[in-house]
């Protein structure tokens, strides 16, 4: 069994850690880098609670052996806020009561961030598709979809205000 040094840029910061063959990206983030935002839910790629952005694209990090993504750019929920200033999506989730137990929230936020980066003015149906891989057992989804639409509007309004 080979232990490999893996280099990642995580939330803009260069990181290096030792990975065994069985170390998934999720395990490395949580146990070696101390970033416990992404959650281990099903470990099957089905629940989405481990969703992070891999080179900008949302992925289920529980299915990614860390050594296969050496050199990648990773974004996790810990990188969204700027100090005490929440991101648009985080603030919209807070304002819209779009979280209850919170276990799905980091994955939901990252899926939402990826959607809005690609599509600043999504329809509710496009939001549904974007979060179709993120399971929430508390909210019934409606407040989450509303919050993402709200975040999109806030972001568009801010962009317009700066022009």
């Amino acid at each position: 069994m080979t232990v490999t040094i893996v280099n990642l840029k995580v939330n803009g910061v260069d990181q290096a850690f030792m990975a065994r063959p069985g170390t998934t990206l999720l395990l490395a983030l949580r146990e070696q880098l101390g970033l416990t935002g992404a959650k281990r839910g099903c470990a099957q790629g089905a629940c989405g609670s481990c969703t992070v952005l891999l080179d900008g694209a949302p992925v289920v990090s529980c299915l990614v052996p860390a050594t296969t993504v050496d050199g990648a750019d990773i974004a996790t929920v810990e990188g969204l806020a700027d100090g005490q200033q929440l991101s648009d999506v985080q603030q919209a989730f807070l304002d819209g009561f779009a979280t209850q137990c919170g276990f799905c929230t980091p994955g939901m936020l990252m899926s939402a961030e990826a959607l809005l980066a690609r599509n600043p003015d999504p329809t509710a149906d496009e939001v549904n598709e974007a979060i179709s891989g993120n399971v929430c057992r508390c909210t019934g989804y409606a407040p989450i979809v509303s919050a993402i639409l709200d975040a999109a509007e806030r972001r568009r309004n801010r962009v317009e205000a700066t022009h």
Partner: protein
Amino acid sequence: MLTEVHVPDDVAAAVRLLESGATPLGGGTSLMPLLNDYASPPTELVSLRRAGLAGIHLDGATVRIGAATTLGQVEHDPRLAILDPVVRSIASVPVRNLATVGGNLFAHQPHGDLAVALVALAARVTVVDGGTHELTVEEFVTDPRGLVTEVAFTQPADGSFKYLKAARRRFNSASIVTVAAVIGESAVRVALGGVGNQIIRAHAVEAALAGQPLTDETVPAAAEAGLSELAPVDDAYASAWYRTRVFPVHLRRALLGH
């Protein structure tokens, strides 16, 4: 338990590792769930992520897609608009950004909807398995083995490709019935997913539709003819009985749009 994960940077190195008994890893969306179980047997993997097998190339009407291209990359390539409804019917966004085109050919039914579409499109696959071979996707999926490097197909005439997947939910659910078809002036090809342990080429449906216009009479008659070729099974998504009942309805919806 994973004992080793190799990340070769070319196909030759990947082939050498596979010949020594290692298991190929595409996106890992089928394989890693098995290996995340701590009771899994010792396994050595060869990741194809850096083997130079990703990429989408168009040359006239010929489309070539590298095996390690993700379903997400297919989804976001405007040149492959005909495959957009296909890939978006598969799993969810964070899974599609890992799952690969080559890996989909190994997915067990009722998964593997892209492979169903590729059978309908008469796609060909390049495989390294004791030498480099090219064969049809239709042949390959009956006994998938070896290292897939590429799939290729000819873009069908505008409007001739039909695809519809019936599932329990609109997003992120396995197939109950998947219909993929190319309705050409001279030839009709119909492939079905979800209605057997293998992808089914619906020869009886094709024969019934050959030379016929698609109408409210011809399509139900073709569906009736096609029932004998289905081999549906019960699973957690649907019963065999339900799949059989749904098939004529979804063939009609796929081909006629209503």
